């Protein structure tokens, strides 16, 4: 039976070459990196090697990489860890951040911090004027995601970081969807902090990292033995860290090849859908978007029912951002683009990855129109044209 995975923004498989590098660290090279004996030293060496790989992938220094247990934790460390060093003041995020940033911002808000959510235009690009005007005397941080997980739009991060610095604030970007998909250099971007996550770039789940520019001071969220230069205590997840290093390394090596290939596949898929199904609206920026992201909304029908029908036909896609809240709310991202709630409920996200082929894209374009048709026949909102 067909089995096509178009949900790489939710998570990727671990690349077998990455797993291969992780494997020895479970049962044989299982030392605790804090221990002085040879198994401990071996584990320490592996952790530091992975740190160098991640640093190299971002153009960062090794001492600027803090391993965390994932993207969400890294985002929380960036926002809460950075701001908690100050008396409550003000900070800025975009209106389309991932819940990891959004909810960390809400938590800070409950602690007395004022926060502005900067709107985006119809393509999902942040309103740079509104952003610039939002800064106040007591603005300590701005955080804008590198690329959106739902609609794929890439933000002008270098410009946003520059503005923040001019205004005397630090700048963080959640680059979970960007790292591994597009070239990212923290120096060129000029950011103070940057989040990445293993399982979005063919590495393991449960591991991520925060780039913290030299001189940027944070307080930890998790206290204990003082690991990760005191920023994240807890025995290091050695296989996970090794896997993250290997995954970043591999992504670097493949980027030049995969990026144009995925862009072509993405555009083929988007064109195919738009041409074969009426009343479909493409979401996100036409060009400034992630290589593998195809997002659209289908009128008169609802996302989950499309998704389940597609699943029954062997196509795994997402109806928006994956999150465990079980919320039935339409995606805040799609609403922020200016769409109505009804339209937002009809959104679908296909996110392509290394292993996807043109045949798979073409198969999708075959299967999708009759599914839409079937669901529209069932919909009380649909009036045959």
């Amino acid at each position, binding site marked *: 039976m067909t089995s096509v995975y178009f949900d790489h923004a939710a998570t990727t498989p671990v690349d077998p070459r990455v797993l291969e590098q992780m494997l020895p660290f479970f049962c044989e090279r299982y030392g605790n990196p804090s221990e002085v004996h040879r198994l401990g030293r071996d584990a320490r060496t592996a952790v530091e090697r992975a740190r160098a790989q991640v640093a190299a992938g971002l153009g960062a220094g090794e001492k600027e990489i803090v391993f965390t247990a994932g993207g969400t934790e890294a985002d929380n460390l960036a926002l809460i860890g950075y701001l908690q060093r100050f008396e409550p003041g003000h900070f800025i995020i975009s209106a389309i951040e991932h819940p990891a940033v959004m909810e960390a911002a809400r938590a800070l808000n409950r602690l007395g911090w004022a926060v502005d959510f900067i709107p985006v235009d119809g393509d999902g690009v942040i309103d740079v004027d509104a952003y610039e005007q939002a800064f106040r005397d007591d603005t300590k941080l701005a955080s804008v995601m590198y690329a959106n997980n739902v609609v794929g739009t890439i933000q002008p991060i270098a410009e946003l970081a520059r503005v923040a610095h001019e205004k005397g604030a630090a700048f963080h970007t959640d680059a979970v969807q960007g790292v591994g998909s597009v070239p990212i250099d923290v120096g060129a971007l000029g950011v103070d902090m940057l989040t990445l996550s293993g399982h979005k770039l063919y590495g393991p789940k449960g591991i991520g990292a925060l780039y913290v520019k030299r001189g940027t001071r944070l307080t930890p969220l998790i206290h204990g033995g003082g690991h990760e230069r005191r920023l994240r205590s807890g025995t290091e997840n050695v296989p996970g860290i090794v896997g993250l290093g290997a995954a970043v390394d591999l992504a670097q090596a493949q980027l030049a090849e995969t990026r144009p290939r995925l862009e072509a596949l993405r555009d083929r898929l988007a064109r195919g859908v738009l041409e074969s199904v009426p009343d479909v609206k493409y979401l996100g920026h036409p060009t400034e978007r992630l290589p593998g992201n195809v997002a659209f909304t289908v009128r008169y*029908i*609802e996302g*989950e*029912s499309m998704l389940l029908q597609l699943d029954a036909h062997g196509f795994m896609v997402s109806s928006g951002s994956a999150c465990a809240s079980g919320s*039935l709310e339409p995606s805040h991202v799609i609403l922020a683009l200016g769409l*109505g709630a009804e339209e937002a*409920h009809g959104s679908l996200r296909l996110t392509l990855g290394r292993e996807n082929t043109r045949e798979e894209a073409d198969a999708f374009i075959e299967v999708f129109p009759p599914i839409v048709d079937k669901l529209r026949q*069932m919909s*009380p*909102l649909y009036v045959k044209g």
Partner: protein
Amino acid sequence: MYTDLVMDHFSNPRNVGEIEDADGVGQIGNPVCGDVMRISIDVDDDRIADVKFKTFGCGAAVATSSMVTEMVKGKTLAEAAEISNRAVADALGGLPPNKMHCSNLAADALHLAIQDYLVKAGREADVPQILKALPKDHAHSSH
């Protein structure tokens, strides 16, 4: 997440469509909330002779709609009026907790269709007896 029975009703929904010149039509939900269900019935000798549904919504919304149509066909209006949203969910072997509130309104749509029939048939007086509690169209607190 969904039981096999939910998936079956979702994939092969029973009684999809709209009865032309139906004796009664009930609609509930609104597209902003992501779920709209419309149920139309034909009534014969106080029994539901035919029933069809159209639903905009998630898998649970479609499956509960399909299930309720199966449950009530041939039932008396009074029997049909006894069927609750909860009973529909139970008949499907349960629904995920987050789907219980918004997507499980098919019985309510049916009750509105019964009310519509009674009113159209000039039996407004019977409404309170047959339909003990009429659904309010939820204000969907979450919006």
